[in-house]
């Protein structure tokens, strides 16, 4: 596997729509010329500019970008929580009656007034799934996330890492067609993060659901993803796609030990660095022009 390099095809988002996919499988999510603008104080701010993506069924797709590049907005649009200004997206319908998507939100999103069990069972309860089925499914994912002993605990009794595990158990228990994850581990410390990476990969390997995962951490992206999309910031555009060449199942620590891992990370960083610098530069310019105006 050592000869496999990351795919460095730089794609102009306005030009070609599709990146070549080496595997032949059906397309699950396709995003087509999607643009999102916000109006604030009479000015129009473009959060997402002409985004084109196709995500295969069963793919672990990661979006990496500097803060404020509109990643979360994109995810919220796919989750149906916001509407695009123009363009469209389509998610291929699942055969069964399972929900289309479930989201793991950034930060604390589990209900403080429900026990761990009630939180994990939330989606199933909302869909009126039979009690016995809820019991099996929730029990399974609580045990997978090491939460069985805390089933009756309330969130305030748990650490941040535990709470994020509940959030993951809630999303997986709901058995959605696709999983949308919005920087789920960004508030966690490094050790907890690594543990949760391992757990997430283990659970994901069981089901191989289509995942759309957002992060600002390159390490996280390379550890988890099959394919990584790098975004520019302000406006958020597609900068490049990178295929991650590592086999599954993955051992997180062993993976990070490999030289090729470092190469992929370095490669992405090179592209991202420019973006981060650019966005810092833009921020500086804005500050300078603001200062000049105020004189």
């Amino acid at each position, binding site marked *: 596997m050592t000869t496999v390099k990351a795919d460095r095809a730089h794609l102009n988002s306005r030009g070609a729509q599709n990146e070549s996919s080496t595997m032949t499988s059906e397309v699950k999510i396709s995003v087509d010329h999607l643009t999102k603008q916000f109006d604030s104080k009479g000015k129009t701010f473009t959060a997402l500019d002409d985004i084109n993506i196709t995500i295969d069924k069963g793919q672990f797709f990661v979006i990496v970008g500097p803060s404020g590049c509109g990643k979360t907005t994109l995810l919220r649009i796919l989750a149906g*929580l916001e509407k695009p200004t123009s363009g469209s997206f389509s998610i291929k319908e699942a055969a069964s009656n399972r929900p289309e998507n479930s989201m793991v939100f950034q930060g604390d999103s589990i*209900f403080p007034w429900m026990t761990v069990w009630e939180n994990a069972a939330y989606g199933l309860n909302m869909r009126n799934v039979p009690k016995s089925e809820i019991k099996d499914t929730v029990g399974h994912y609580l045990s997978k996330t090491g939460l069985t002993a805390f089933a009756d605990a309330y969130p305030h009794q748990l650490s941040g890492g535990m709470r994020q595990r509940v959030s993951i158990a809630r999303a997986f228990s709901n058995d959605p067609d696709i999983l949308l994850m919005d920087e789920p581990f960004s508030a966690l*410390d490094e050790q907890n993060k690594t543990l949760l990476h391992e757990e997430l990969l283990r659970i994901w390997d069981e089901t191989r659901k289509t995942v759309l995962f957002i992060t600002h951490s390159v390490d996280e992206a390379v550890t988890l993803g099959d394919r990584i999309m790098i975004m520019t910031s302000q406006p958020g555009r597609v900068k490049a796609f990178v295929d991650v060449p590592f086999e599954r199942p993955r051992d997180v620590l062993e993976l990070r030990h490999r030289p090729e891992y470092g190469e992929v990370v370095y490669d992405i960083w090179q592209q991202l660095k420019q973006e981060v610098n650019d966005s810092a530069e833009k921020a500086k310019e804005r500050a300078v022009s603001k200062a000049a105006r105020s004189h």
Partner: protein
Amino acid sequence: MTQTSAPLAAQVVNPARRSPKKNKFGVSDRVLAIGTPVVLLLIWEAFVHLGAIDARFFPAPSSIFMRMGELIASGELWMHMWASIQRLFYGFWLGLVPAIVLGVLMGLSRPIRSALSPLVSGTYPIPKSALLPLILLIFGLGEMSKVVMVAIGVFYPVVMNTMSGVVQVAPIYYDVSKNYGASKWKVFKTVAIPGAMPSIMTGIELGAGLGLILIAIAEMMGAQEGLGFMIWNAWQLFSVETMYVGIFVIAVMGYIIALFLAEVAKWVMPWKR
């Protein structure tokens, strides 16, 4: 998110090691809590017997308790208490139910809030006791006027606290319920109500207190029974001991209601325990 990295098992299995309830004098808090009023009553009693205070206005506690015994024995006290309790009970529900429904609707819907909020906050500062003559005029001297007074007292704090409680529920919880396919009713039941519950309970506590004040006033003006009537009647007959009995019983009722509501709060908000 960044707090609580303390060992978790210890936290859950061994909930908060309480410091022993003794202060540095070696007396427990409970002894102090009960001891202080008892000592004050004894001092009061002694002052009366020494002639240091005027027994016409401050009758000895012993004579107040004796009067209380008489009133209990004759069934009079119970009759008045029961009248007040019934009015409080019906008035409480009459104020509470519309207040919660309206408060949640105002919290969830911006148009409803914009339409009704000025009305509610505009009428809120009116001293409720000033409404008594009007209420008596509308509802007559029967039970209804007293029940309505209590209901008004309960309504305002509950509606305002419910509304602000619902508004303050973090938007992410509504996003979650929407993403997980909750119906309107389930959003109501699983997010808005429990999220606003601490605030709703605060409103209920305030409302119950206000209800108690208003029932006493209403019974003084337009009633032939009830604790408020008993106190007012005692003033007219210059039976100061009876007056004190009435005040004492109302105080105890208020205290019991507060304790009861604290228990209810624990029961409806198990996550706050």
